[in-house]
């Protein structure tokens, strides 16, 4: 599998996902600079975490209008899988590739900590190595990860099985206590309608190395490599 990572000025977790993908696929991803309007041939496009353009406007809003995002949208529409993590998720919503928006955390603070996530479906290239209902642990590190969409959109996401991950307690209960940032219906990650685009706030790439703690994120990358190789 050949992945390409889109790098904006202010991206800062590109190396984390680069390392995770290289470890899993054995093939270093390509790095694409935001000013490039041509995308290289790639099986997977990744938009990493960070603070694109400083996120001085709404998070991800500037990056969503960057020239490279036009190319990303075209590829996504033709079915190339896209993974947006943290700021990448924010950019995908701002670019209209995913519905909803990421608001400021309900505590109004940045939080960096491990959270529990319930995998909602194994029926996707991203989650095929997990079981539906499985509880995993991965870090979050964000100030604006509070997912919001109108009721109609939320209902549609649920009806079509497009919720990928939800924040939960260690026992897997989806409730207020397990909700890391106030997200609507505890949503931590969602797919587009064809389930080829995934946006999520937690950092699976930072849960892939046994030396650093839990490795529950590894299955996401292993699943992608398996599905796209």
């Amino acid at each position, binding site marked *: 599998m050949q992945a390409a990572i889109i790098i904006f*000025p*202010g991206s*800062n*977790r590109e*190396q*984390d996902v680069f*390392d*995770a993908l290289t470890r899993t696929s054995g093939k270093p991803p390509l790095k694409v600079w935001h000013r490039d309007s041509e995308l290289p041939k790639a099986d997977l496009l990744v938009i990493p*975490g*960070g*603070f694109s*353009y*400083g*996120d*001085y406007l709404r998070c991800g809003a500037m990056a969503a209008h960057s020239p490279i995002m036009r190319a990303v949208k075209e590829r996504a529409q033709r079915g190339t899988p896209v993974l947006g993590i943290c700021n990448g998720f924010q950019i995908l919503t701002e670019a209209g590739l995913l519905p909803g928006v990421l608001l400021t955390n309900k505590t109004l*603070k*940045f*939080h*960096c*900590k491990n959270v529990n996530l319930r995998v909602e479906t194994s029926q996707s290239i991203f989650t095929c190595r997990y079981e539906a209902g499985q509880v995993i642990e991965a*870090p979050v*590190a964000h*100030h604006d990860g509070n997912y919001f969409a109108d009721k109609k959109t939320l209902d549609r996401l649920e009806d079509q099985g497009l919720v990928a991950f939800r924040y939960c307690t260690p026992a897997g209960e989806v409730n207020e206590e397990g909700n890391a940032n106030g997200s609507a219906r505890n949503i931590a990650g969602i797919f587009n309608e064809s389930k080829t685009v995934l946006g999520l706030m937690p*950092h699976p*790439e*930072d849960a892939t*190395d046994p*030396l*650093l703690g839990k490795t529950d994120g590894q299955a996401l990358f292993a699943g992608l490599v398996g599905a796209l190789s």
Partner: protein
Amino acid sequence: MSGSTAASNISPEIVAQHGLTADEFARAVRILGRTPNLTELGIFSVMWSEHCSYKSSRKWLRRLPTAGPRVICGPGENAGVVDIGDGQAAIFKIESHNHPSFIEPYQGAATGVGGILRDVFTMGARPIANLNALRFGSPDHPKTRRLVAGVVAGIGGYGNCVGVPTVGGECNFHPSYNGNILVNAMTVGVADAKRIFYSAAAGPGNPVIYVGAKTGRDGIHGATMASAEFNEDADAKRPTVQVGDPFTEKLLIEACLELMAGDAIVAIQDMGAAGLTSSSVEMAGKGGLGIELDLDRVPVREERMTPYEIMLSESQERMLMILKPGSEDQARRIFEKWELDFAIIGRVTETGKLILRMHGDVAADMPVGPLVTEAPLYDRPWTKTPRRAELRPEDVPAVDPMSALKKLLACPDLASKRWIWEQYDHLVMGHTVQRPGGDAAVVRLPGKRKALALVTDCTPRYCVADPGRGGAQAVAETWRNLTAVGATPIAITDNMNFGNPERPEIMGQFVGCIEGMREACLALDYPVVSGNVSLYNETNGKGILPTPVIGGVGLIDDAAKSVTLAFKRPGEAILLVGETRGHLGSSLYLREIAGREDGAPPPVDLGAERRNGDAVRIEILAGRVSACHDVSDGGLLVALAEMAMAGGVGASAAAPAGVPAHAFWFGEDQGRYVLTTSDPEAMTARLGVAGVPARRLGTTGGDSLTVEGADAISTAELRRINEAWLPAYMAAP
């Protein structure tokens, strides 16, 4: 006449406003051979400020050991450089941003982080970790809550955005900081040991380049402000605080590192305190050369800025470079790619003079050498801090150990600081092996098995009681923290935070702390490679506790061999390494339980410190230690509780006969570790051969911490108590 170097009306009031004494002004006049104009006066003022010239501290800083087999570059450059093997160097420094953070906590703290990051990447290193050391006033003081919130948000706001993990730090509260909080920020970076960049200018005719953000009117005279006491008007000084832009800093890091991969740079220096003035003067001074700047070419973001304002602005995210001739275009392309300003603003000369031109006039013409070498140096009078009486255990009331433990775990200094460090991205870059909350952070080096262990520490209540012991203890405790995770301590950076040095008792604290630090550095082969001095931390004549913060860096060959403080499993033996006499003078127990802050602090036996630590490290690296924690604030029972809370595994322990129970559990004797092992007899025997005292304290297991003769407390309850205070405090209106 057009030459603005002509004498202007420099009244004694203007001189005083610039923080220069009459003698210092006379010295400036003698150097120039005439009266300086306002721009020149401003330059003298910042270059000779305490902040830039170290005029009160230089004499004593020379006492600190700065050499060692691993030292590549000691104090005097932007940061210290040590050899960490495999052709790599660690580059690090700690720096204060105390005065600005009190005036405007968010921006003050944020720009403190930005400034120290620049000191490190200026030398060619990619920053891999940030730490900090914070001191706030009493929690009851009306300003404290707002200052904590602002400082923490500022550190996070900057560090999180630039994408450098904030992996460790410390935070204490004491009324002596009510009017002068301390915000000390440390950055650690890694570079190719053969590609370190220095600041000495070279090559007359070489172009001088300005890169980064534009210059505005912010932060003018910050260095002078940071060199004076506060009075009631502290808030009115807000315009001297700079505003940070971490996004620009991130671009500047990437652009500088990209340029540094080639060979275009002759010298480079960040524009920190005193901005363009100190960077140009220091670069020229170190090279024994002159520098000419055309201020019309400096990128500015405000109209009609004067030479005075341009030279004294402390706008952030700016660097000054001297390039090899002919490499300008290559460098310009890199900075344009990152959308940063790039301007050729002058050249290096052989004249030895700083010449500034603007609008066709000469705005300043002054000799560089004397500006640096003839900076005032004071041998301030000092008095030795009076010795305090040693307290005996029977001088201190005994209370039930478990109720004392509960009170200590909830006190502001020992309460969990999770509320703080969860606001810092401590994981970005993907190499954080040990996260905040342990003895030291452990950060793996990219692409390697090895890791750096990092810590900041200081115990100001010891320093005020006995500066010599306190200075030695601060150094020793960082050495012990690094050892407790399995690392070999390499070197330190120091941040000397003190009151007004013009008072002999404050100067005595400074001198005492330096002497104690010196002894510890020598005994532990642990040199000082960089540092910063912050004096005048005083409001209306009341100084802070002397606070020489030590930032320690250690190396561990294989990150997988590091251990954490968490109890791992039931049924393991708990050993106490080191000698316990039950020293309660200046302890937290004495302050929090008995409400007293008297008595001599614990003595530091540096020979035992080294013996004990070296022996513990051998056991850890041999894989025979499952958990290890140093014994410090609060004493032994607090250490056990911290290990139980971290692991969610309980323990039972008993005090031996011979030492009164309260002194045994809460004494703060130095040079001690608690560790767990499955084979205590063999370990005790090996430690005994090394001359290291060790005794069995108890056994891990169960859900509770149990001490013979007292009630048990569950680990869940301990956690609840320890985690509750800070979030509740910050949530209160």
